[in-house]
């Protein structure tokens, strides 16, 4: 299949409110493969572009469970099975003494899973991305808000999509070369 030379069409907005409204209208108009970019997290924006399934909590839960279980099992195996040491007659399997490290391992694994899970789910690190080809996009990390319709969207038509985005009263509309 021939790769589309155009990655998508991008519209630029002045405010978070304008972006949320435009994102809602675009999604409701039937464009499903879209994305929105903002210089800070905008409340409810992800939901407007059809993002409903955030797997980060699940990743963190699994990471925390693995950390806690492995922390406890490690202490039990070392202290009671592989290397039992009699210290002042304390029991080898001294579960109350194992709580602290079990807790710390839970936090450690859950925290690492949270950060690396977020990065992996976001597909980062990704130093190059077609959206960076738009010169104005450098303001997306400062004070501008962007909406893109990907050319892979079923409803995408170079002319019609551009006209649709222009109808949302953006500051500018540009093609994103891939």
């Amino acid at each position, binding site marked *: 299949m021939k790769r589309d030379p155009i990655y998508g069409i991008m519209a630029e907005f002045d405010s978070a409110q304008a972006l949320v409204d435009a994102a809602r209208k675009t999604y409701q108009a039937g464009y499903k493969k879209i994305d929105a970019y903002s210089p800070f997290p*905008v409340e409810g924006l992800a939901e407007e572009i059809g993002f409903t399934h955030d797997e980060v909590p699940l990743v963190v839960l699994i990471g925390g469970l693995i950390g806690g279980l492995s922390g406890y099992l490690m202490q039990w195996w070392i202290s009671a099975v592989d290397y039992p040491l009699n210290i002042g007659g304390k029991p080898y399997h001294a579960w109350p003494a194992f709580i602290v490290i079990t807790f710390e391992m839970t936090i450690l694994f859950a925290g690492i899973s949270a950060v690396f899970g977020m990065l992996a789910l976001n597909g980062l690190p990704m130093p190059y991305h077609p959206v960076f080809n738009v010169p104005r996009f450098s303001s997306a990390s400062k004070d501008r808000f962007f909406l893109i319709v990907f050319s892979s969207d079923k409803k995408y038509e170079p002319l019609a999509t551009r006209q649709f985005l222009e109808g949302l009263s953006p500051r500018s509309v540009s093609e994103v070369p891939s």
Partner: protein
Amino acid sequence: MPEQYKSSTQIEKAPVMEPGYTFGTVTEKISAIVLTRPATNGWFVGFGVAFMVTMMMLYAIGYLFLRGIGIWGDTTPIGWGFEIVNFVWWIGIGHAGTLISAILLLLRQSWRNSINRFAEAMTLFAVACAGIFPAIHVGRPWLAYWLFPIPNTMRVWPQFRSPLMWDVFAVSTYATISALFWYTGLIPDMATLRDRTDNRALKIVYGMLCMGWRGSARHWHRYETMYLLLAGLATPLVLSVHTVVSFDFAIGIIPGWHTTIFPPYFVAGAIYSGFAMVLMLAIPIRKIYGLEDFITERHLQNSAKVMLATGLIVAYGYGIEAFMGWYSGDRYDAFTIWNRLHGPYAPAYWALLVCNIFVPQVLWIRQLRTSPVALFFISGVVLVGMWLERFVIVVMSLHRDFLTSSWGMYYPTRWDWATYIGTIGMFLAAMFLFLRVLPAISIFEMRTLLPEAEVKE
């Protein structure tokens, strides 16, 4: 509301950020410190001095590795001297950074947004300073890795029923999570720096460090979920760290250590000294870099109030220690209290009471809570006081315990002082570098404080 109350609440609610800023001006103001502001002579002198003091620390540690622990003042029965005092002091200072970034986030305290970044950096550097001491005090530091459960040919393992092992896990988890929290907070801001700089090399460096962050709504959603969960994880973690540090003492049977008040009293003391350090850093930073609009009177006041509250908890801890010395009926506990008040180290205990209890009471006065100069000096007094507290706990309990035949005295040597002062130099040198290469205030979180960031459904 009656008039006289109204005016006082208006002063109380000094803004978190002065009005009149936009997304663009907030971004420019903070990123300019890194990108366009030239390094002044003051910065070079400050960094240069801090760097030389760091070199002194490395020299002292090098000599320690050559000659052994004998160059320190530690002698039987005082096996724990400056190294543990300084370790507890530094790790306590770090706690305020996590409190600001995690606990205040969960409590939706929006004023945290302008101080969380450098407070987290402070945490990271303080934990690094703290981590030096346990690593170098083990006698044969090249074997310090024995503290970790690493499979080895000797087929031996660490002993997990000891609180010292708990401490290894608590502190290393704390260091890891603090670093992750700080770094992920920086990702969107490093993307901002990538887009703002004209320097090609810097663009590549920041572009790599921010991992190609582009601010997609899906990314932000997962990012915020991650950030909130990390805050939720860091909150019990930070409380656990100083609790576990206090277990190092409380699980032992030495009089003055074996008490149940230690965990809460240690955590409160940690936050107390940490906020003192936050103020000692924030006051010069806001002045020198002209950030009074972002780090306002509100931040100074709130930090002072946290200090006042945690200081009172600490004072309660001292009170309970003295009360239990009498109420327990244990002659060794009673003697420990007597020894603090009248023994050879009594000046340290009295100075601690003055620094930690009496002087900070002036924070009840609003004029002093909002005066940067006064707060700076009060914070310095609190930091000295909290250091003395750890000295009193570690050294004064060990030097006179059960048998008079095993009493002794501890005198720190010049190497103890060189290592301690050296870590302060290292901490400051790292802070100086941090201010020049990374945004000291979280830019994207400051944007969310602007009224334009609000979105109606």
